[in-house]
């Protein structure tokens, strides 16, 4: 049995380069059993590389990696009996049925035929695929395939489940299903490490978050701690040019922070610490001043905002370090 008290995942100073490209730059993190750890970052930030290292698919150049008490570099064979992996693309077979797919993975986890069969039936029921179980996966929707892939990664009853962008490219309904399934798993004692590009996903699922960019872990904490760093919601609105000064004055009276005009986006932005109530107040003020904006919206902080806040630039993995400027110019043209 594995030690129940220590951290279930421990990464210490892990680096990995592909030629000149540094994919992971001395990453260290650890977390305890029974939580969802979210790894947040843009495309190319190193999320997938870290998952591949943790799941024995890739040997790090340096550093130590322990999963469920096993050194994955020194003893990958034992580590594989304790983990489950659902990669970025559903690795299910189009020409096999849902049941055959999951059963096959069960057999490869060394379950007996009977055991693989009964666990498969249970899992398919759990992910609401019982009715489609004996159809070939070719007939499945994208969301069904993702759920099936998850079921396959669960059949070995892993102590730690690794999910690489589990909802990327999934329709909204299936997305909720996947979230629900992850929550159920954690309630049953599985530890989950998932990567995501979406702040709302990290927010609703993760107990702890690591923000990764250019192969470095740049921030860690609970979702709330992270959001505090961002400063909450904002109201963005636009008015015709002649009305700008009047609008700024009307809104200036509502908030402690003065409104900002963003030249590049052509929009006025004000902080909205009270969320919808701040928006209501702003609309009342505009109404009183007889100003009708062209549009007005309450914006949640986006991943862009997280990165802006943490790194001072927009997330653009493949772009040079001063990527924020070209991104914004692109927006004006649209």
């Amino acid at each position, binding site marked *: 049995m594995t030690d129940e008290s220590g951290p279930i995942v421990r990464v210490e100073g892990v680096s990995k380069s592909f030629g000149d490209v540094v994919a992971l730059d001395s990453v260290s993190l650890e977390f305890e059993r029974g939580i969802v750890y979210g790894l947040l970052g843009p495309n190319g930030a190193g999320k997938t590389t870290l998952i591949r290292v943790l799941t024995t698919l*890739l040997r790090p150049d340096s550093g130590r990696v322990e999963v469920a008490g096993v050194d994955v570099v020194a003893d990958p064979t034992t580590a594989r009996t304790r983990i489950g992996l659902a990669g970025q693309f559903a*690795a299910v077979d189009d020409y096999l049925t849902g049941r055959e797919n999951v059963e096959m993975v069960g057999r490869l986890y060394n379950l007996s035929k009977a055991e693989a069969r009964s666990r498969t039936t249970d899992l398919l029921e759990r992910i609401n695929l019982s009715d489609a179980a004996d159809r070939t996966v070719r007939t499945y929707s994208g969301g069904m395939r993702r759920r099936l892939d998850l079921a396959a990664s669960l059949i070995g009853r892993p102590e730690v489940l690794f999910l690489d962008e589990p909802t990327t490219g999934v329709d909204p309904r299936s997305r909720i299903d996947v979230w629900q399934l992850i929550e159920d798993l954690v309630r049953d004692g599985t530890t989950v490490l998932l990567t995501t590009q979406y702040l709302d996903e990290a927010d609703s699922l993760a107990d702890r978050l690591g923000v990764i960019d250019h192969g470095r872990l740049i921030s860690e904490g609970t979702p709330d701690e992270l959001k505090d760093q961002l400063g909450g919601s904002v109201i963005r609105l636009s008015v015709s040019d002649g009305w700008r000064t009047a609008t700024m004055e009307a809104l200036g009276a509502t908030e402690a922070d003065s409104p900002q005009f963003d030249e590049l986006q052509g929009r006025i932005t004000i902080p909205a610490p009270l969320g919808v109530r701040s928006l209501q107040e702003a609309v009342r003020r505009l109404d009183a001043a007889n100003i009708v904006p062209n549009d007005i919206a309450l914006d949640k902080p986006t991943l862009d905002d997280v990165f802006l806040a943490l790194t001072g630039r927009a997330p653009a993995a493949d772009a040079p370090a001063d990527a924020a400027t070209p991104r914004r110019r692109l927006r004006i043209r649209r």
Partner: protein
Amino acid sequence: MIATRSRAALAHALKDTWVIARRNLLRNLRMPQLVLFATVQPVMFLLLFNYVFGGSIGRSIPAAAGGKYINYLVPGLLIQVAIFGSGQTALGLTEDLSKGVIDRFRSLPMARSAVLGGRTLSDLIRNAFVICLMLAVGVLIGFRYQTTFLRLVAALLVALAFAYALSWVMAVVGLLVRNPEATQSAVFLPTFPLVFASSVFVPTESFPSWLQGFADNQPVTVTANALRGLILGPGALPHGQTVGGDVFLAVAWSVGIALVFAPLAVRIYRRSVG
């Protein structure tokens, strides 16, 4: 203690290999177009070569063929089918690589050898099916073996051994090229000259001498000759060759190819995906 453990490891590896092979075979069964093309192509070759070239080539073939080109052609085509069939090993592997299936397999506590072992095993079984089917069509249009049924079976086994050995070469090709489309060309480029510059379709005596030197000594000719010896008798062989000698050489080529390329494929598999 150690013996039991290694026996358990072997049983584990065999079970995993079979799980993978079974999965590949199921895929074949459910993609009828794949099996269809794999069977139609050799049958088409059989019909075309027999009816288009049969008349003019017929006169230059050894007397042991009973005066019929089809009797000379079928043993050669068995090899051609085996070679083209082994190309599927490369294509299947690159498809799995590109879809993340191999990543899933590698994260499981399964035998390391099972992905390649299962792939080559399922391709062997599929090849056996296609070869038997082509043989049946051959019989329908006039092919008759000139020796014994047992020798015919032996010939099929020699052909399948060659196909299995080539599957490991193709596994190396697939693992190195990785891209499914590029693999298609990478497989066919070397196989065409090997198949045509051989005794598969016609005796090599008519080749220019520089080409004959290559053709006579390359494994495809050696294996084709071994099959002809087994199916048609020693009279079908070039002067100075014996059935036993050719069969020995053919099996030696297959064993040699497998001994070089199987460990190489396993090494590349381990390195390239990890």
